[in-house]
């Protein structure tokens, strides 16, 4: 168990992460596991009993879900509870979390059928409702196109076709396999923390290999039409694997915050968009540029964005752009210690990728980056995929 001691919060946050390599055959079935686990345990066989217990624990909250981290799929389980000082009576939150993850309700060598059927239906709806959130959908679609045929191109909930094939027995088998073989990380963040105990396992095999799947440049331009007032333009860039600190600074100068090239040029100079920015996916060596524009401005916007990439390559970065970009990263990194979820996420990522850098060391590395480092790196950043979700012209 990893302990993060801090006096900043009124609550303690505990987490259990089960990490497996993502692949297309298991992505769907794995995404169903947290959804079914939260329906009932041996001791608390229904949601009603689980929720009553949480409310009795002075509004403790349990959260679970599935995430994509690089080429891994992570099943995440959290419980947040008031720290002892503010609890009128002492509670045992980690026992409850252990119960939810490791002691599910089992009937005839399978999960409860009713729960599995209902949660299959729920996930089917999530998959089918992907288009409802246009901003998220367009980013997901760009990732899918850019990483087509690769692990990272998989959608974290999988697909409906594979979902249909799952029953309560198969799901329980897969659950047992994961409990036995997944990498398990436990975290506690707060004060006077309790311990989390993991059941004894009989497998010594570690499924996790720290390799990022190789990516081939796709050079795609995809346009998708939908009933939207505002078009969503996403552009995927490929970066080298290292040095990540320099790429972080490159990304912020390009599209992090209001002083960035994208915000200044796409929004302020041309008035084409309300928002324009970019984000760096460190574990996949990719940067995604995101902006919302009128459909008829597509060509113009792409041109202006490409011009910003050229400017970076040509070394046209002002001291202001460079300094404020760096400042933006270091100050947002220093805010990690102000959120329990962010603290746990930071240290989990560091552990998973065997880097184990303390937060202040990580910030120091960013401080060291020079403008020349960024300019030298810029030529190695390549445009990969342009995706545009648009309405009528």
């Amino acid at each position, binding site marked *: 168990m990893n302990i993060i001691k801090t006096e900043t919060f009124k609550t303690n946050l505990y987490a259990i992460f089960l990490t497996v390599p993502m692949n297309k055959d298991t992505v769907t079935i794995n995404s169903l596991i947290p959804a079914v686990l939260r329906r009932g345990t041996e001791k608390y066989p229904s949601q009603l009993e689980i929720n009553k217990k949480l409310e009795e624990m002075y*509004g403790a909250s349990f959260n679970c879900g599935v995430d994509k981290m690089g080429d891994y799929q992570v099943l995440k389980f959290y419980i947040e509870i008031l720290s002892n000082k503010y609890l009128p009576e002492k509670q045992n939150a980690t026992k409850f979390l252990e119960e939810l993850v490791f002691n599910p309700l089992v009937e005839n060598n399978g999960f409860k059928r009713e729960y599995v059927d209902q949660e299959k239906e729920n996930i089917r709806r999530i998959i089918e409702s992907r288009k409802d959130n246009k901003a998220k959908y367009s980013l997901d679609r760009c990732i899918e196109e850019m990483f087509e045929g690769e692990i990272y191109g998989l959608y974290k909930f999988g697909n409906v076709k594979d979902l249909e094939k799952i029953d309560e027995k198969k799901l329980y088998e897969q659950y047992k396999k994961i409990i036995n073989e997944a990498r398990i990380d436990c975290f506690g963040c707060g004060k006077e923390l309790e311990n989390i105990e993991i059941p004894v396992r009989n497998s010594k095999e570690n499924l996790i290999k720290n390799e990022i799947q190789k990516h081939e440049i796709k050079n795609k331009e995809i346009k998708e039409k939908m009933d939207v007032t*505002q078009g969503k333009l996403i552009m995927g860039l490929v970066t080298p694997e290292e040095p990540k600190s320099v790429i972080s600074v490159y990304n912020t100068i390009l599209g992090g915050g209001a002083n960035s090239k994208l915000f200044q040029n796409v929004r302020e100079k041309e008035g084409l968009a309300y928002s324009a920015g970019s984000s760096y996916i460190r574990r996949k060596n990719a940067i995604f540029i995101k902006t*919302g524009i009128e459909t008829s401005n597509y060509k113009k916007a792409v041109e202006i964005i490409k011009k910003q990439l050229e400017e970076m390559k040509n070394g046209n970065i002002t001291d202001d752009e460079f300094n404020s970009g760096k400042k933006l990263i270091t*100050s947002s990194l220093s805010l990690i210690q102000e959120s329990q979820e962010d603290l746990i996420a930071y240290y989990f990522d560091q552990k998973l990728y065997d880097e184990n850098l303390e937060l202040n060391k990580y910030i120091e590395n960013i401080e060291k980056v020079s403008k020349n480092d960024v300019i030298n790196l810029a030529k190695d950043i390549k445009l990969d995929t342009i995706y545009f979700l648009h309405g009528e012209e």
Partner: protein
Amino acid sequence: MKIIKNNKIDESVYIETLENGMKIIVVPKKNTKKKYVIWATKFGSIDNNFIEPKTGKEIKVPDGVAHYLEHKMFENENGIDSLYKMMALGLDANAYTTNDHTAFLFAGTDNFYEGLDELMNYVQSPYFTDQNVEKERGIIGQEIGRYDDEPDWKLYVNTMDCLYTNNPIKLDIAGTVESISKITKEILYSCYNTFYHPSNMVMCISGDFEPEKIIEEVKKRIKTKEKNEEIKRIYPKEQKGINKKQKEANMGINMPMFMIGYKDELEQCDDVVKKDLAIQIILNSLLGKTSKIYQELYNDGLLQTSLDISYEYSKTYAHVLIAGESTDPKKVYEKIEQTLKKENVSEEDFERSKKKIYGDIVTEYNDVEEIGRMYLSDAIKDINSMDYIDKIDEIDIEYVNEILNKLFKENESVLSIVR
């Protein structure tokens, strides 16, 4: 200075009202590096008709002015945009406009006083030109376009349209492309001079501060020292009862969304904190995750996640909203309405809900931003957020069921659906 201490949760709040009428609220937090300040004027999208204090003239402004003004406040005579300047200092700076206020804020770990200089300078020095007002029209037009594509927003606006006949809360906060085309620098100055006077403003600060010291720092930076007359806002008279029962919009989404609204009578809002808590207890007991109806709806596949509930209150409106997503929103609506009409809150549910709500309130004190936002939005409504933690103990089940009767049993509800 007023000091309110709460030993149960180890928090104190310091409230100072300056001579010019401005209120400053400080919630000190040890063991935190993040500092947060939010400064707001009681000027929102519903304040579109008022008497200009200087001239005594009645003024009607185009819809969306408060929001337009928020955008333009960052502009300075020297051409430097304050938002960018603050971001370059490593501060997370922002602004937003609601129905009843406009707020300017920043959070950060370093450079707090440089940020405070900039914040208090730009809010107190408007600089509008024909040209810079014109430039903003395209950007705000895009922002309006973005809202048009957001089903949540449509759902909310339509609920307001069902609940209210004349109240300007029905209007889009940012206005429409048509209404903002009429906004000029003269209109912006008139609104600025009326509403951005310290007597109409509140500031909340949270972080590791000595309260007296930070209040002095704020005072030093205030430009207007004298008090202003009260602003006369003119609101259309709102009729009793709802405007229309139901409204549906089609936005081509896969999972329909719904919002149920119950309009509250303003004259019945004497103790809003107590009432808000009673509403939370009622809705948690009867519709929350531990309720019979929620389990039924979940098992029938009619609800996937718990319902969102909120009680929105100001001097001109008050209503309860219940929102969620369902394949069959009408059926869910019928069940919810029936439950609220027939059921009462039991002793067991009452006690458990109180525990949960106590936990929720204490958890709000985890983050200086949460604290600042909470104290500010409550202060705009003349509420002190600290009251919540005391009043949760004072509340009794009779009062809760009395509110249930008045608000949910004798009252007509409305339904907004987006498909």
